[in-house]
Each structure stands twice: as structure tokens, then as C-alpha cells.
């Protein structure tokens, strides 16, 4: 896919502009088909513009990016979603998977990770900075070093 169509969704104009500049410089052949300032606008534009990639912020006024991801996937189009956020946590990878996104990139690491993540998703893969392998296992160790155990309900424990 030489000329993938990209939709940028973020409630901050300055962030959208930063992404556009970054991508424009790194991959001039990519087409930024549009921008959206919130989830509802994003949904409308996904339907019209049919982007290949949706770069989606999580924290936005109204419907959050995670909810927007679920709704976009429900449209049944081929748009693949990349979460682009300031949040940083071990939980994020799982949440991202749960809503059907293909990966996530931290905003402060955009210059390093964004292009790479888009390319990996375009080629059918996923991207995340640190998949939380240990989560869910008993006595496992989370990405950020918190020791936690899964507490089984009393019926299972017996």
C-alpha cells in the first residue's frame, strides 16, 4: 500500500498539526485524508473518507478514544486503529487490544515510534511499546513492577 490514507483524531489542533508535520516529513507519499477533533466527528469522517489508518487519541471531550475505537470497528470497514496517547501504563496494551485497536504510541515518543507503528500495522501486524506478558498469571509481575496476585472468587478457590 503505497499511498495509505490516514485520519488524525485528537482534540488538540497543535497535536494534529505535529503529527501531520511529522508524517509529512517522514513519509511524504502517505495521504492525510482528514482530521477530527472528537469521537463523533471521527466516526463520521471514517465513513466518508474510508481511511486505512485512524490515529486516535484516548482522552477527548465526550466519547473517549477507546469507545470510539469500538464503534469504528463496528462499522465493518477496513480502517485500522492506532491509539496515540499521553497515558503510560501496563494496562494500556490490554485495553487497546480489548477495544480492537492494533497498537498504541506514546505522544512523547511519536518521533521515534509513530511511523514504525503505522508501517507495522499497515503490513498486518500490531505495535506496542511493552506488551504486559506477565499479567493474568498468579503471582505474576506486571510491566511496572507491581507484584500482584489474582484473587480468585471463593467458589473457585475451594
Amino acid at each position, binding site marked *: 500500500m503505497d499511498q495509505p490514507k490516514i485520519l488524525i483524531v485528537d482534540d488538540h489542533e497543535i497535536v494534529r498539526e505535529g503529527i501531520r508535520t511529522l508524517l509529512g516529513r517522514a513519509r511524504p507519499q502517505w495521504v492525510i485524508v482528514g482530521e477530527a477533533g472528537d469521537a463523533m466527528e471521527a466516526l463520521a469522517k471514517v465513513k466518508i473518507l474510508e481511511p486505512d489508518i485512524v490515529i486516535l487519541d484516548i482522552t477527548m471531550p465526550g466519547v473517549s478514544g477507546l469507545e470510539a475505537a469500538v464503534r469504528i470497528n463496528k462499522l465493518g470497514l477496513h480502517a485500522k486503529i492506532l491509539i496515540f496517547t499521553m497515558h*503510560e501504563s501496563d494496562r494500556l496494551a490490554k485495553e487497546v487490544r480489548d477495544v480492537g485497536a492494533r497498537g498504541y504510541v506514546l505522544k512523547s515518543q*511519536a518521533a521515534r515510534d509513530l511511523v514504525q507503528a503505522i508501517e507495522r500495522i499497515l503490513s498486518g501486524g500490531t505495535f506496542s511499546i511493552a506488551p504486559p506478558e506477565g499479567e493474568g498469571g498468579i503471582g505474576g509481575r506486571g510491566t511496572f513492577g507491581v507484584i500482584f496476585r489474582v*484473587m480468585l472468587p471463593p467458589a473457585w478457590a475451594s
Partner: protein
Amino acid sequence: MSASKVAPVSADPPMAPNTVFDSESAHVVHFYHEDSSLLDELSLYVGGALVNGDAAVILATPDHLELLAGRLRETGLDLAKVIAQGRYQAFGASEILPELMTNGLPDAQRFKQVIGDIIERANSAAKGKLKRTVVFGELVALLWAEGKYEPAMQIEELWNDLGKTHSFLLRCAYPTAGFYKNEHTEPFLKICAAHSSLSEETHASRGGDEERRRSILALQQRLQVLEHEKSSYENEQQFRLLVDAVQDYAIFMLDVEGRVRTWNRGARRLKGYEASEILGEHFSRFYSEEDKQAGKPQRELEVAVRDGRVEDEGWRIRKDGSKFWANVIITALRDGAGNLIGFGKVTRDFTDRMLAQRRLEQSRQQLQDSERSLRRLSQHLLRSQEEQRRRIGRDLHDSLGQYLSVLKMKLDSLASRMGQSAPEAGDLKQCADLTEDAVKEVRTISYLLYPPMLEEMGLRSAILWYLDGFMKRSGIQTTFEVAPDLQRLPADTEIALFRVLQESLTNVHRHSGSPTAQVRLWISDDTAFLQVTDVGKGMKLQNAAEPAHDETVTIGVGLRGMSERMSELGGKLELSSNEHGTTVTAAARVRQQDDASTKPA
């Protein structure tokens, strides 16, 4: 001396009684209620003596003299004959008395002379086999009636003295009506004593003692009755005075129909009516028109009749039409046989008390309102504090954070375009790193203010993130136990539980000295539990609802706020602590949240 002497009588009447004289003592006193009873006995006493041939000396009131003469004639005695014989000597007591007195006091010499002469004359006229003289004297009763108790007693003594030198039988008589005062008691007892002593010394005879004792006993009983009546009368007088003098209570009586019968000073003061205006009026005029129309006055009387008394509080009307708040007690009054004779009514003015009571209730109500609004205010403050934290956290994160992120993005981009060999590459790298630090700082501060992931990803993720930061800051090894499929909880509950976690771990860090901490989160039935346990030195336990006064102030206030929050959510906060550690448990009711996990706030 003006004795009424009559010619002696020759023949003894055959029908004359013969029994009395033998059984009589020498000095008998007779207390009588009515003249008829006196005359009954006296006619037997005197008549019997005359029939037996003895002599009689009568010192009596004109009335008694006349009546006695009549009675004696009725028995068939020829009074003119015995008078002619000198055996019946009658004198008006009030005429004899001055001859016995000197300067208003009995004179022993004159008594002995005057009375002694009369008795000697009578004795010499007596012709019966005993040759006796019977005497009836009312001298003493006369003095008594004039209030001359001491002279009366002296006359009694003089009679007794005379009895030592002269032979005669003496009978005195007092009307019992003369004994009613307290000061009568002493002389009365003396009278009894005077008469008994004479009889013992001189003329004691068989049967006479017993008769005398019996009569003295009867007299003592009579005395008791008199004393009781006297004190009742005095008490009643005092009570009447007391009732009348009372000013703070309206005390008055109603007749059976409810009309005012008595009126005291308090009633006049309280209700404004003079006695002359209100006596005979129906008491319903003290009631308001509404009460009257509702039949309240009559109903209260009915209840008083049924239950014995009725108590009521309410508005009553004064003469001038003004109202006062009255406490009223109506008591049914019955005579000894149980018949209703009227009602006693006591009314007090409770207006001040009632108003004070109302003010008190108002104050109490105001206090409750204040407490309620204070509670609302405190809840509002908690919410608004939460909202502010959230807003500042959001602003930092979404505004400053975005700018810094984009700045970092551009710096990175610039650095990569310039290449590492460029002379500015080092500075540029430093700028990018500083920006990265700034982003992280903003993120940390904003997360501390309000955990954004709590909204986006729920309590479980938020706790994991927070614990990571907490362990780095405090060095306290913390474990987290949680069910793998924990659903999203209501937003209020999630933030409240998260704040409990923050507060508790802050306490663990600052106060407990514990090297480890344990966090557990679970749901049982419809309640979510969050528990934070440490193995520190424990804290001085206090009621979470009361502020502390020492180092634990921050704990107390913090947990108090948490406690408020939990109770607002229909849950509670429990704190247990000893020297081995502290456990804080928060419980919050959660409603069904089927789709919460797919619906971040």
C-alpha cells in the same frame, strides 16, 4: 342572800325513785348536751333525795330552777311541803355568786360562811335515815361560761374543801358546748381531777367508782372529739386563708353545673375578674369561642367526673379578652357518700413556659437544619474538591502535556533531520530529554491530582498504576490482590475507593513505619470492598467521625472525609489497629453494572 325558800312538805310521794342516790358519788360532774338530759338526771337525783327525807340545795340558773321545780312536781312531789320543811333550798346561782367573791375572785372565807351556812341549815332540816343533803351547783358553770376558768377551778376546790368539814353530796353540771377551745383542755382535766378526788376521800361507795370511771372515760372521748373538731375548724380557717392568699394559681370551686362558687386572689389576678363579677357565672367563659362551640368545657367536666380529674393545656381568655396559655387541672369533688358536690379547679399561667418551649423546639430545629446543611456543605466541598482536582489534572495533562508532547515530537524530528554530527546535536538532545522529563512531570502531577486512567480504564488499572508510583516514591513493597474479571464500578464508587487507597497508603508511608503493604479489592454480593493492611506500629484509634488532637490529626481528618464519602455512597469505612499493624476497610454498595467495562466514563 335571796334564796327562794318554800314551806316543807310532809308526805313522801310513793312513786319517787329510790335508786339514784345510793349509787352516786359525793362530787359528781355532769357534762350535758341538752337541758333535757340534765333535768332528767337532776330530777332523779334531787327527787330521790327528797323522797328519802334528805335535804336538797340547788344553786342554779333561773331557767333550771323553774324547770327542775316543774319536773319535781310532775313526779308527784309536794314541793311546797318540802320547802316548808327547809329540805328544799333553791338559789339563783348568779345571785349567790357575788356574795362569794372579793375583787372578782372566789373568797374562801365567804364561801365557807355562805355555802356552809346553807348546807348546815339543810342538814339540820334533813330527816331521812341518812340525814344527808344533796347539792346541785352551777356556780362553776356560770364562771366558766364567762371565761373565768381559774376562778371556776378555785370554786371547785372550795367545794372540795367544804366537803372535808360538811357532809353533803355535790353535783355539778357543765354544758359541753362550753368546751371547744384549746385553752379549755387544761381546766377540763382539772375538773375531772377535782371531782374524782373528792369522791375518793369522802363518799366512795360500791358501784360509784365504776360509774365515775365510765363517765370520765366518756368525757375524755368527748374531749378528743372536741379537740379534733377544734383543730379541723382551725385548719380549715388556715387553709381558707392560704388558698385566698395564693397569687400564682387561680384556685376556685365550681358547682356541679360548672358555675363558679369560690374565687381567690390568684384567680382574680390571672383572669381579671373580681369575685363579685364571676361568682355564679359558668366557667366556660374562660374558654375561647371555638372551644366553647366544640363543647370542650363540658367535656372536661365529664372526664373529671369519669376519671376523678382532668388536666389540660391550652389558650384561655381573660376578662379583657386577652389570651394566656393555661395549665388547668379540674378535680371532681365528692362527699363522704361519693356524691358529686362540685369541682376544684386550679389554673396556672404557662404562657412563658410554653413560649420558651417553642423557642427551644425552634432552636433544636434550627440546629438540625444547620447540621444537615453542614453535612450537605461538607459533601459539596468534597465533590467540588474532587472536581477541581480533576479539572486541574485534566488541564495539566490535556493542555500543557499536549504542548510539551508536541514540542518533544518536534525536537526529536529536528534532531533526526540534523543528524548526530551537527554541532547543535548535543544541545538538541538535551532539549528533547528535558522536554521528556517535563512531560513525565506533568503526567505525574496530573495523575496525582486525578487518575485519568480511572475514567478510561477503571479502578483496577488505576490502582496498578498508582501502586507503581507509590512503591517508587516510598520504597514500601506493596502487593495487590484483585479478581481477574473485576467489572467496572460506578464512577463515584471508583473514585471514592481510589481516594481511600491514596489516603490509606499515605498514612502507611507517613506514620506506620511498615516496610510492606497489602491492597485487596473484591466484590461480595452487591458490595465492593477495598482493604489496605500494613504491619506497622499501629495508630491511636479514634472515632473516624471525630477530629483528633495530636499527630494523628491528618489521619483522622483524612479518614473522616473518606468515611463521609463512603457513607454517602451507602457504604462505610472501618479502621482497626493495634501494635502489629493497621487495616482500613472500605465498603461501598454497587448496583448492577453489566455494560460498565465497555463504557469508560
